[in-house]
């Protein structure tokens, strides 16, 4: 923690100063979102949001609460910038990820046009990185309203791991169907391997909550849905909600040591490519 004290004098000029005792979780979370080159970084009094948009059809947002940071200084109401996520991830992982070591991380941002300075320290070795930022793009708001939710299913991600990895990639879409009789969530693909249905009955021990107003089915493009795979493996629980427009929300909860949680949320618009004459 020597490095924190030395950098203190520069702080006054920085609009954002963040520090974490262990960069590993930060890295793990960011790594799951590297399916696109850029991410929008937004810091507000409640914490940090990292958003990745995929062709305006899929959006992933990682929420890092203020409490996760050992130092959280914000000198403006909100600070936003666009940053190449892959590059940031590489920087944060420069010390590698051995389980015993812990890497101290400190990030500072001087304002529009300034790079994000990343300082890492482990075992007395200090690495300083500077990542160029861009002006932030407007983030599309999917307007997912919890009041308009048709179904909500909370389940452990464990059951989904193997299934998502095995999904038939020759299928264009993955259908999410929530049925009432029998009460279950059904994931379906239709491709070269035939039709494959995976049923999760509501009374299964891995489903913690199963609520639905009505029976419904929506299809989503499989290539987009597969973006959640890495997050699925990192998280312990997921809440799957569908709203009246068919937009899917998958909220993943990643447990942290000391009872903290990081949430990563995915929104996906339904696939409307099938033309039914």
């Amino acid at each position, binding site marked *: 923690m020597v490095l924190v004290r030395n950098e203190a004098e520069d702080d006054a000029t920085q609009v954002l100063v963040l520090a974490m005792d262990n960069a590993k979780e930060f890295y793990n979370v960011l790594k799951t979102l590297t399916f696109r080159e850029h991410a929008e970084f937004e810091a507000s009094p409640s914490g940090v949001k990292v958003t990745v948009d995929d062709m305006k059809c899929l959006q992933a947002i990682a929420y890092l609460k203020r409490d996760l940071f050992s130092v959280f200084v914000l000198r403006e109401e909100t600070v936003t910038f666009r940053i190449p996520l892959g590059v940031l991830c590489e920087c944060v992982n420069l010390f590698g990820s051995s389980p015993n070591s812990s890497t101290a991380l400190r990030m500072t941002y001087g304002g529009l046009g300034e790079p994000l300075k990343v300082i890492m320290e482990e075992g007395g070795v200090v690495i300083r990185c500077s990542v160029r930022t861009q002006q932030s793009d407007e983030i599309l708001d999917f307007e997912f309203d919890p009041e308009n939710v048709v179904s909500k299913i909370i389940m452990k991600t464990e*059951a989904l791991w*193997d*299934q998502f990895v*095995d999904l*038939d990639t020759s299928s264009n879409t993955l259908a999410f169907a929530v049925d009432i009789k029998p009460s279950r969530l059904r994931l379906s693909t239709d491709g*070269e*391997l*035939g*039709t*494959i*249905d*995976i*049923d*999760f*009955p509501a*009374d*299964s*021990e*891995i489903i913690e909550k199963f609520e639905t107003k009505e029976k419904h089915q929506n299809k989503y493009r499989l290539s987009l849905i597969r973006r959640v795979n890495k997050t699925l493996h990192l998280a312990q629980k997921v809440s799957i909600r569908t709203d009246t427009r068919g937009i899917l929300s998958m909220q993943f909860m990643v447990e942290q040591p000391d009872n903290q949680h990081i949430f990563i949320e995915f929104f996906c618009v339904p696939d409307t490519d099938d033309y039914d004459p």
Partner: protein
Amino acid sequence: MVEAGDAEFSPAIEGPSSKAIRCVLQGNLKVFARAIMALAKVGDELLLEPTMHGLTLRAVNLSKSAYGCYLFSPSFFVEYEGGCGADMNASTADADESALCKISMKCAMSVFKAPQFMEKAVRSCLLNIDPSSDTMSVEMSLKYGVVKSYNIPFMTCGPGLRPMFDKSLAQNCIIDDSKCVLSALNNFGASTEEVTIGGAASELLIRNHLESEPDRSRVVKTEITLSKQDFERFAVSVFDDVTLCLKEFKAILVFADSLSMPVSFYFDSPGKPFMCSLESDMTFTGDFVIATLADLPGRASVQRRVAVGSNSQASSATSLAGGCDPLNSSAVENDRASSAVTRSIAVPRVLRSEQSIETLLSDPQTVSTKTVPETLLHSANPPVRVENDPPPAAQVDSLPPTEVDDGISDTVAGTPPPSPPPNKRFRSFFLGLSQQTFHASQIYKDAEVLAPDSDPEET
């Protein structure tokens, strides 16, 4: 779960036809999955035949030189119902009568993948196979009550292929607990495509076959001798070398090894099929039939004994003298071998008598042309074993094509030297007929000749 046939044309009966079976797998699921993995090494399509006697899975490779078959009796399954009593041995040309159906091997592998994973994750597996339907369904009950259902489309299935092989006719029989031969095979390089297996009175020799190698002097030659004691049963009376494709051979050994089952090998002389059987389990049997390289006329006796005189490719291979003593003699063997060979020469006229009849063991392109003219054969002095010029392992069988072609290009049916691709492809269409594994009904006896052969050289 089982889809009925086309509802518009059949009487309004829902439900499976009389040919359908419904069976449940539990503990044996991994055996089933491994069987499919072994068949996947043979062919790209999986043929299923459900009958009341059990479920048969088959695969054949493209060149029809390897065939794998598993028969799972009803006792292999936890539940087994349905199926008609189709005669398992008849080759049925009438698709309506047969219970044959076919799915792509890719589909089969994607459903029954990773046997170790299946063992842990899958509680039970329900199969519904109705040959008269468009799809078959596989329902897997996984952990936590999750159910995964596959509806696999059937491919159009032609008339059944039944290879005619009879294990009781094979002269040699060896029973191995599979670890022995498999661990021997693991010594061969990864690029080895074919191996030659030679039975002797008290041992088995396995070496890699080098015919298809373009540059033989650069290839590592491996030879392994397995003693009689390593086998459960060792009854070898025909001391010939047979050459077969490694991939399919290894597939069944790997399967047997995973279940610690013994494998029985039934083989004979070159050209006759090499059969591997799994006979020890009560609930299922497995048979793999692999075609072996047929011999050149009159040359059979030359194997492993003669250094072909004009072979200038000297190598530093050690002499095979050590293991070959018992084979040196008997004219009886020569006659056997040559008679076996002459039988296999009785083939469509398109093949010239000087040319060798080869089994296509792998991709047609990799099989080299062994064109040995009569003249050079006579000078080779059959039963004599020339010790002072030890042949490089597995090279005795032929002359390098280049040498041959230079001398006798006029006798070879107008093909460019040395191993011409067009010739090989030509053979690939017709050579299948030379195998004794073929049923007569496969040959087009009454095919109409639309254009007579205009090549004056053809007899």
